[in-house]
């Protein structure tokens, strides 16, 4: 019987320690033949005291633009993420002050180039409670979980693969799982060992 040559489907749901879905977790699949992610240009806005989006996934070589949409200044910093994993990409400790927006114009903008995989914690010197995350991935198959805690992949090559789940509050790295991807959909459920705090407003 000929094996199907079509790509398999992989659906991963990330749950917290109490079994509830976790949005904004990063799910990375590494097929046996690695596929490098493609660099892109993305924008992370500072809006209503939040980084929007909260978690941004990019490839090495990407340009990340920070744009302040609030009426007041932000002083953005990027530092190595406290989360488990390969640590911060080299050269991505950065900080820049972005002027507030006015009635006539958006606020300050600044670009950061990322070169190596890793996780960067985003913060603000002026507003210590602001948190965001920049995840520089090393696999083309990387997604954030949606509000149901689910990441849906539809183009992962058949064969063996490794599954990694990253979340900023999961400080102890979860062991990677081995997946066998074939014609039938692969459904995985991955529990964190923590209950991430819930955001208000």
């Amino acid at each position: 019987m000929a094996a199907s040559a079509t790509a398999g489907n992989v659906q991963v749901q990330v749950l917290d320690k109490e079994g509830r879905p976790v949005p904004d977790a990063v799910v990375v699949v590494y097929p046996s033949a690695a596929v490098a992610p493609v660099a892109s240009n993305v924008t992370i806005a500072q809006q209503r005291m939040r980084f929007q989006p909260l978690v941004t996934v990019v490839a090495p070589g990407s340009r990340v633009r920070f744009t302040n949409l609030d009426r007041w200044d932000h002083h953005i910093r990027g530092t190595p993420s406290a989360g488990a994993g390969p640590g911060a990409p080299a050269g991505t400790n950065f900080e820049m002050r972005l002027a507030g927006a006015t009635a006539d114009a958006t606020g300050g903008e600044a670009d950061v180039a990322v070169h190596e995989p890793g996780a960067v914690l985003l913060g603000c010197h002026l507003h210590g409670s602001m948190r965001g995350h920049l995840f520089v991935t090393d696999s083309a198959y990387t997604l954030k979980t949606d509000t149901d805690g689910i990441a849906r992949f539809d183009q992962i090559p058949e064969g063996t693969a490794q599954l990694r789940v990253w979340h900023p509050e999961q400080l102890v790295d979860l062991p990677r799982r081995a997946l066998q991807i074939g014609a039938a959909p692969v459904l995985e459920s991955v529990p964190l060992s923590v209950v991430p705090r819930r955001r208000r407003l």
Partner: protein
Amino acid sequence: MKNTTALYCALLLAGASLTGVHAQTPAAGSKPTVAAPLAPADLYAALGEKAGIVRLVDDFVERLVRHPRIGSQFKDTKPAALKEGLVDQFCQLSGGPCVYEGPDMAELHADMDINKGDFNALVEALQAAMDAQGIAFAQQNRLLALLAPMHRDIITVH
């Protein structure tokens, strides 16, 4: 005991003041927590005007960042930035010629997990700072009365 009494005084006064805001404001105000029209006459002068408020806020923020209970809330914030915002806010609230242009109190505190005990600890630190600046007790209460309604936007953990 004095501190506790002052806080309850402030909260009582605040209730009265807040009712006043709603009565005076016809349209939905975008920033009910920074209500300049409430400023009592000469509170700004009683605080020593801008220079006095700067001294007060300097001392207040130093007490906050060193505070055993709530100091950690400020560990990722530059004290200078915090001072700048508080000076503008206190100056405007007390009737001074300043405009606070920072985030509103709800946005600013949404992710800080502040409970009533934390809020009270901050009020006590402010009272201690006002004592240290020699601000009269009656004037302290007037400033606290302006600030106390903000607890609705700041306390998110009950």
